[in-house]
């Protein structure tokens, strides 16, 4: 189903203090990694709302990556723990919805770990590439059509 | 504990005494050693010098055989140990080499998954059997025997992980466990010259001299080795050392020979007569001879 020049699209939601800074450091160190990530900055991973991930998938993302400070290192002392709880819950939910675990990932990356950003980015892009496109929007369309037909046939 | 045993060419030739003492010692310690069936030469250093992938295939055959046989693979010869370890590293680090070798092995109905653990006797003696167990089995402690522990290069460098690369300790521990007196021997990991004694004797013999000299200066009665080539070089070229440098008559034995002695195994089973420089006089002097 994936056409030859399909490229995975991954939305990354990074906390301002650790992971976003690490991503900057990766740049300052001129590390090269896959260009498939689109980073959205929030102040703390604690701001992560499961809706963000669901919306991203619904809008055509093939993967979602959350990045926060290591446990114990949160700039706001424990926002990342709060995030962790939601993310665990969401992960289970996504699996039930038939979205492969590799499409949704949480990583603790501290401000000094530019190299880890590179590793995670490349690794996740590779894994998602292997899974192929999620193309949820298309699926949802088909779904709507079916529903419509259903209703039609009922009448 | 079950191990496959990879003698290597030397232990069948110039290094016979190593095998002759090694097997009884492990038997006495209740370890089952079965010689790897139809093993071939590891390739040593020379094969690498001609064709690296063929070298990997040559060693690969042994690894494949060992994997089939099951259990860890014990390689007492430093060169064999190194080559087998190195081949494993290459196969896992370099897909190209892995592919080549895998293909070649396939041609003769063999395959290698990378499961074999290559082990050196020192590693097994200290980490699997344990120094305590061995010291309990000692019947003739080597009281008063001053031993210079000589590890040589290739068992600690560069791949071995069972001992410290700068200052290895496993042999020291074993010697103490059997009651010997370990002399501080800073040359313990210096090179014996390898095949240079044969190919460029003037160079090789000078290295041998350095090792012998330091051992006697530190008051050693004997040098204890774990490698057939080390033993060969240090033992067989002392006439040259004497003529080129200074008089030298330092017995050079295998650790397994000393262990066997301490475990009370019959002398003749330990190949103690095979030293060019005989070890018997000093053993007699220290009253360690027995039948």
């Amino acid at each position, binding site marked *: 189903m994936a056409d030859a020049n399909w490229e995975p699209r991954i939305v990354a939601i990074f906390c301002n203090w650790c992971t976003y800074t690490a991503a900057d450091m990766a740049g300052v160190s001129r590390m090269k990694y896959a260009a498939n990530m689109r980073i959205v900055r929030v102040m703390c991973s604690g701001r992560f709302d499961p809706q963000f991930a669901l919306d991203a998938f619904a809008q055509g993302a093939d993967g979602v990556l959350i990045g926060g400070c290591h446990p114990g290192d949160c700039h706001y002392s424990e926002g990342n723990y709060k995030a962790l709880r939601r993310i665990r819950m969401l992960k289970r939910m996504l699996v039930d919805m038939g979205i492969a675990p590799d499409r949704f990932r949480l990583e603790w990356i501290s401000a000094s770990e530019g190299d880890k950003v590179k590793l995670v980015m490349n690794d996740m892009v590779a894994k998602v590439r292997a899974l192929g496109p999620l193309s949820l929007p298309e699926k949802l369309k088909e779904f709507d059509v079916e529903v419509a037909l259903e209703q039609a046939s009922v009448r | 504990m079950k191990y496959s045993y990879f003698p290597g*060419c030397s232990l*069948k*030739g*110039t*290094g*016979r*005494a190593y095998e002759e003492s090694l097997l009884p010692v492990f038997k006495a310690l209740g370890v089952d050693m079965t010689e790897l069936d*139809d093993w*071939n*030469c590891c*390739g*040593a*250093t*020379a*094969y*690498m*010098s*001609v*064709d*690296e*992938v*063929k*070298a990997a*295939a*040559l060693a690969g*055959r042994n690894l494949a055989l060992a994997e089939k046989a099951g259990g860890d693979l014990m390689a007492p010869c430093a060169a064999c140990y*190194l080559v087998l370890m190195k081949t494993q590293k*290459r196969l896992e*680090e*370099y*897909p*190209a*080499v892995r592919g*080549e070798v895998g*293909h*070649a092995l396939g*041609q*003769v109905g*063999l395959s290698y998954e990378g499961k074999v653990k290559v082990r050196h006797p020192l590693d097994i003696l200290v980490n699997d059997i344990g120094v305590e167990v061995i010291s309990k089995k000692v019947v003739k402690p080597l009281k008063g025997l001053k031993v210079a522990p000589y590890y040589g*290069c*290739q068992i600690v*460098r*560069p791949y071995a992980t069972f001992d410290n*690369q700068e200052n290895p300790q496993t042999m020291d521990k074993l010697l103490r466990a059997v009651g010997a007196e370990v002399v501080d021997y800073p040359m313990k990991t*210096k*090179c014996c010259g*390898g*095949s*240079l004694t*044969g*190919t*460029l*004797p003037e*160079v090789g013999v000078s*290295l041998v001299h350095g090792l012998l000299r330091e051992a006697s200066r530190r008051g050693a009665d004997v040098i204890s080795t774990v490698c057939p080539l080390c033993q*060969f070089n240090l033992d*067989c070229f002392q006439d040259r050392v004497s003529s080129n440098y200074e008089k030298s008559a330092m017995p050079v034995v295998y650790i397994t020979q000393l262990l066997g002695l301490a475990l009370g195994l019959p002398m003749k089973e330990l190949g103690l*007569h*095979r030293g*060019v420089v005989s070890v018997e006089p000093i053993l007699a002097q220290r009253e360690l001879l027995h039948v």
Partner: protein
Amino acid sequence: MKKIVQTIKYEGDLDKGFKSWIEGIPGGEKLHSCIQCGTCSAVCPVSLYMDLTPRRLIDLSREGFRDEVLSSLTLWLCTSCYACTVECPRQIKVTEILYTLKRRAIQERVYPRGVPVPVLARYFYAMVRGTGRMSEMWLVSLVFMRTNILKALGMATLGINLLRTGRMPLKPDLIRDRAGLRKLLDSVQSGKKVAVS
């Protein structure tokens, strides 16, 4: 009077691809990262006999002095004790790089005359291919017959000693599946083409 020779090196005479060729072969990857600290030379037990110390060999290799490197005695003095590899602050696998250079030297037959090591290596290679095993003494003496008959005589006392102590097997040992081994080795397409993928 000492002979006067011109020692200037012209860029055009260098092999520009030499560095990348070495780095393309397993173990050579880090050649470029050398800081010329000399640790390799200083830990080397035989560097005091070398025409080029390992450090210089590394530098010349990376700069493309192919001929100087391949014809160097250094390659044949290396005992593979791996001290350089272990101690290198840049973790350059010096020993492996030397193996790469030895192979090239043997292939191009540019090793220095009178050094038996390459001959030994070739004999060894052939012998193992044939019998699956090797008998050191047999091989060594054979090599000296070929390269230096006097040295071989010089080895006599050693031979006698080994006979006396029953350590000199007179006939080489054999493995059973010699045909299989030969097949195995021959189905490897020669190593020199294989590089890191």
